[in-house]
Each structure stands twice: as structure tokens, then as C-alpha cells.
């Protein structure tokens, strides 16, 4: 089977999965709604509670889940390729925490700036993730042979602890009353109730995915190691920089919408590699689509399991991803 055929099959299969998740998830929720009423456009929208539940509560939320999941899973793939370590993820590297700190600063201090059509929260979120990745990346550069799992995990733990402390510090000075909401936000929340956060993060995310499309083949070469990749004709410095920025962009976009939701960036890339092999030209699109479907599913659980109250979606992904991560650690020795 040629790569072209495999690509089409992969995208079709995972695309169908993502589409099914996006179409089915809004049909289910903590309340029951009548689909006929939802699409009965003779009722004014303002009077149609079923339509409001569907279009204001569930649909933006489902789309947010798909978008955030796609960004986090793809960013995970790119970080793993860039650092040549299958245990690297936006969450374990502390990149999500960096993005969260940026977003938190923007939210708390009410930065209403909009520059070049990019709103303040995603921009600050991106800046935070770049800063965090820069630290990890500098570490990787200082150690020529790439990052060992030990160093990577330690750096991530340290960065996570440090950045979480910074987040609480910011909260402490800003508005103590928001602390409980900050905590909730840090566990992930996709109940966006409007399309605004999605649209605001779209430019950054689209830019990131454009870079991912180009990066797919360079990432394959990078897994040979930088010297071998260079001798195959790849401009390694450019590819590494592009990977570094685009993965940060995607993480920033995701975190600005849903908070630092963990483990999507590790569970999905691994499952996808098991299914389609390691070629990034298949892994990247498959992970993005599967990641979207996965997070939509997790959020569905989060909002229905304990209805009428809901669980933070980060708890669901952690319940699935935590044991999975440990299993990977054991398997990789």
C-alpha cells in the first residue's frame, strides 16, 4: 500500500471518528432535549430553550473539546518528535502550566489588548508556553545527546511546581476570591458557552497546524538524530525552531480555551502510533482527529457522570491518562 493510500485511509477513518463524536456528543447531556424543537426554526431562538441548550451550551462546548483535544494531541506528537522522547507532552513538560500562567495573568489583570487580530488571553497563553518550552529546549541543547526521560520528567516536574506556584502567587495578589475558580480552571473546563474563546484562539492554532503539515517529514528525519537528519538534507535548526514555536502555539491555543487539560498529549499519540505506525505524516493528522474525538468523549463523561453537577474534564483525562502514563514508564523501563 502506498503512503498516499494509507494517508487517505487514516484521515478517513479518524476523521469519521472525530465527526461522529462532534455530531453525537451534542445530542447527549445532563438534561433531555427534543431534537425536533431544537431545529424548529418557527420558534424564536430566544424562546427555544432546547435550541439554546443545543446551540449555546452543548455545541460550542463540543467544538471546544474537539479543538482543544486536536491541538494538545498534535502538540504532543511534535514535542515527542522534537525532543526525540516518546514521554514528552505539553503537560509533563510544564508547557501547559506556562500557558496557564500566561492565560491567568491575562484573565486576572484583565488585559483587553487585541493585536493583529489575536486576543490577549491566547496571546499571553502562547507567550507562557514559549517561555516554558524555551527552558526545556535550552536544557535539551545543553545536553547534546538529547533529553533522557529522567531529565525530561524532572525538568517537567520542577517547571510545573514552579509555574503552579507563580499562578497561585498571581492569584494571591489579584483577587483572592477568584482562587477557587482558578483551581477549577486549572483542572480544565470546556463549558465555554460561546464561540468567542474558540474564534479568538483560531488564528494561532491554524498557524500551528500549517507548520505541522510541513513538519511531518522533518520530524521523521529528526528521530534519526540531528546529525543524520542534517546529512539527509534537512535544515535541522530551522525544523527544530519551527517545531518548538508551532507546538507552543498549539498548546497556547488549547490552554486559552480549556485550561491546562492533561494527558491528551501522551495517550493519543501513543495509541495512534500503535494503530498507524510512527510516520509523522500519518501520526499528526490521526492524532489531531483522534485527540479531538477523545476529548469530546471525556467531556461528555465529565458533564453527565454526576449530573446535574459536573466533574472537571481534567479529572477524567487524568483518570485515563495517569495509569496509562505509568504503564508506559514501566514498559519503557
Amino acid at each position, binding site marked *: 500500500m502506498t503512503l498516499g493510500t494509507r494517508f487517505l485511509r487514516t484521515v478517513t477513518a479518524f476523521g469519521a471518528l472525530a465527526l461522529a463524536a462532534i455530531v453525537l456528543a451534542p445530542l447527549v*447531556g*445532563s*438534561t433531555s432535549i427534543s431534537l425536533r424543537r431544537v431545529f424548529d426554526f418557527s420558534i424564536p*431562538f*430566544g*424562546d*427555544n*430553550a432546547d*435550541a*439554546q*441548550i443545543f446551540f*449555546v*451550551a*452543548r455545541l460550542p*462546548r463540543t467544538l471546544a473539546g474537539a479543538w482543544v483535544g486536536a491541538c494538545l494531541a498534535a502538540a504532543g506528537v511534535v514535542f515527542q518528535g522534537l525532543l526525540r522522547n516518546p514521554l514528552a507532552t505539553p503537560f509533563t513538560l510544564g508547557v501547559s502550566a506556562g500557558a496557564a500562567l500566561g492565560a491567568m495573568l491575562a*484573565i486576572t489583570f*484583565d488585559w483587553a489588548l487585541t493585536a493583529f487580530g489575536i486576543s490577549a488571553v491566547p496571546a499571553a497563553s502562547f507567550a507562557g508556553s514559549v517561555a516554558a518550552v524555551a527552558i526545556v529546549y535550552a536544557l535539551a541543547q545543553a545536553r547534546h545527546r538529547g533529553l533522557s526521560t529522567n531529565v525530561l520528567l524532572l525538568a517537567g516536574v520542577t517547571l510545573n511546581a514552579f509555574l503552579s506556584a507563580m499562578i497561585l502567587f498571581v492569584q*494571591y*495578589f489579584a*483577587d*483572592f*476570591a*477568584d*482562587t*477557587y*475558580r482558578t483551581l*477549577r*480552571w486549572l483542572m480544565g*473546563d470546556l*463549558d*465555554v*458557552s*460561546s464561540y*468567542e*474563546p474558540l474564534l479568538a484562539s483560531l488564528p494561532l492554532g491554524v498557524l500551528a497546524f500549517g507548520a505541522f503539515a510541513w513538519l511531518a517529514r522533518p520530524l521523521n528525519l529528526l528521530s534519526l538524530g540531528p546529525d543524520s537528519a542534517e546529512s539527509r538534507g534537512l535544515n535541522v535548526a530551522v525544523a527544530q525552531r519551527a517545531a518548538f514555536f508551532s507546538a507552543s502555539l498549539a498548546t497556547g491555543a488549547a490552554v486559552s480555551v480549556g485550561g491546562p487539560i492533561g494527558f491528551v498529549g501522551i495517550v493519543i499519540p501513543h495509541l495512534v502510533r500503535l494503530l498507524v505506525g510512527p510516520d509523522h505524516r500519518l501520526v499528526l493528522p490521526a492524532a489531531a482527529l483522534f485527540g479531538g474525538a477523545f476529548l469530546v468523549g471525556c467531556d461528555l463523561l465529565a*458533564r453527565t457522570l454526576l*449530573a*446535574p*453537577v*459536573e466533574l472537571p474534564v481534567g479529572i477524567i483525562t487524568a483518570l485515563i491518562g495517569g495509569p496509562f502514563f505509568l504503564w508506559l514508564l514501566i514498559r519503557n523501563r
Partner: protein
Amino acid sequence: MVADKKPLIALTLMLMLCGAAAQSPNHQITKSPNRIISVIPAATEILFAIGAGPQVVGVGSFDTFPPEVSKLPKVGALLDPDVERILSLKPDLVLIYASQTDLKQQLQRAGIASYEYTHAGLADVTSTIRALGDVTGHDGHARDVAASLERGLAEIRTRVKNRSKPRTLLVFGHERAALRGIYASGGIGFLDDMLAIAGGINVFADVKQQAVQASTEQIIARRPEAILEIRASNSALPPADQAAETHVWDALGSLPAVRRHRVMFLVDDRLVIPGPRVAEGTRLMAQALHPEAFR
């Protein structure tokens, strides 16, 4: 400076989120203590209301009422009690939150009596008033305060008795300028009790928690006819911002409350401190829900 900006509502909420601990027996209390410290805004108000004010030598960081407390030393609060400061004031009774077990042990070791306080329903406010009266030797005065509080509440109840009771969403916080991270009162706790007396039906009455993270879907599905947004007075929300925050609800146009313009902001400490002024807070709620009844 920093402490001034931190609204005490946070403490209330933290406690709600932690869940109320069971009331444990308060022992070791000597006859009429004369150096009392309270780290709890509601308890501090009670002490002053029942005439024990002159015995108070230290208060919590968030305590602002009555005005006299501003002259007293601040000794921290729920999360950051300053034990050294507390001990240096040589108290013979310290009023603490039941969840402050570390502080309790330290006081015990120092041989200082403590009184454990828990946020719960409105009924517990009057019983706390009476209990503190007994402890501080102002039992008569305390009984009067409790009785007047109960009378105040009863009066509100009669005023709204025959009115139709709107289904009400009682919100005490959400993300700025967005309908995200909405926290509302569930079916237990003093806020729920206050709402019931003020003539509203809590849309989250079936959720037996003090605080509920309310999803957009649940809010739409529960169709509140009135939305009360309550905040502590120092949560720095200028009137212009209040208007903006009211308008974020326009996104949910199907809510009867939004269509009937019944989204109201109430910014007042009396709403969030379950102390002797809680009847006044309840009255504010009742006036917002049933303005005709108070003409």
C-alpha cells in the same frame, strides 16, 4: 494593603467548597474570658453585637465590621492564621474555624481555650449567637440579639408570604465578562436559607451542596425566573462593570430571568457574612425579588 483587597467572601466560599465539618464540642472554656480573638468575620460581628466587643483583642484579616475592628491587631485568617501573633496577644479564648485543626492543637498546647465555628444554615447563626453569649458571659444580650434576628427574618417571611415565588439562580461568582466558571448556591447552607426566606425558590435546591459549579446547560434547563448575583462589598466591582456583568447573561436569551430583565447585582457584605446582620442581607434579597412588597 493586600489584605484589604481580598474579599472575605473567599473565606465563606472556601469553607463551602471544603464542605462543612461536623460541629465538635467546644471545651476548656473558662468563665467569662476577657481577652478574645476571632479570625472569623461572622463571629467577630456577633461578639460586638452581643456586647463582648471590649473583650476582643485581635481579629481576622478580613474583618471589617463593626468599624471598631479596624483599630484591632489582625492575626490572619482561615488559611494563614498567625500563631505567633495570636499567642503574643495572650488571649484566653480564640474563635477558630473547625477546619483549622493545626491551630487548634497549637492553642491546646499553649493552654488556650478555643471555640470552633462552622458555616452552616441560618438556624446555626442564632444558635452560635446564643452559644457565644454563654461563653463570653453576655448570655442575656445574646438572647436578645438572636431573638431580634429571628424576628427580622420572620418579618421578611410574612412580607413575601403570599407572593408568587420566582425560581431563582443565586450566583456568587463567575469569570469576568464571560459566562464561564459560574458558582451558585446549592440546596443547603445559609445562602439557600436566606433565599427561601426572601421568597425565592432555589433552582439548584435538589443539589445538596453549599456551592455548585453550574454548567450552561443546567442553567438553561432550570429556567430561572430571577438571577441574583451577590458579591462582597470589597470585591471591587464598579457600577459600570456590574452593568457589563449583567449583560453577559444576554447570551442566554431563553432564560425567563433575562427576558424579564430580572438579572440583579447585589453588592453588600451583609449578604455573605452569616452574622447578626444576616436579616438585613436577607431583606436586600427579598427587596430585589419582591420590590412591590416593600413599598
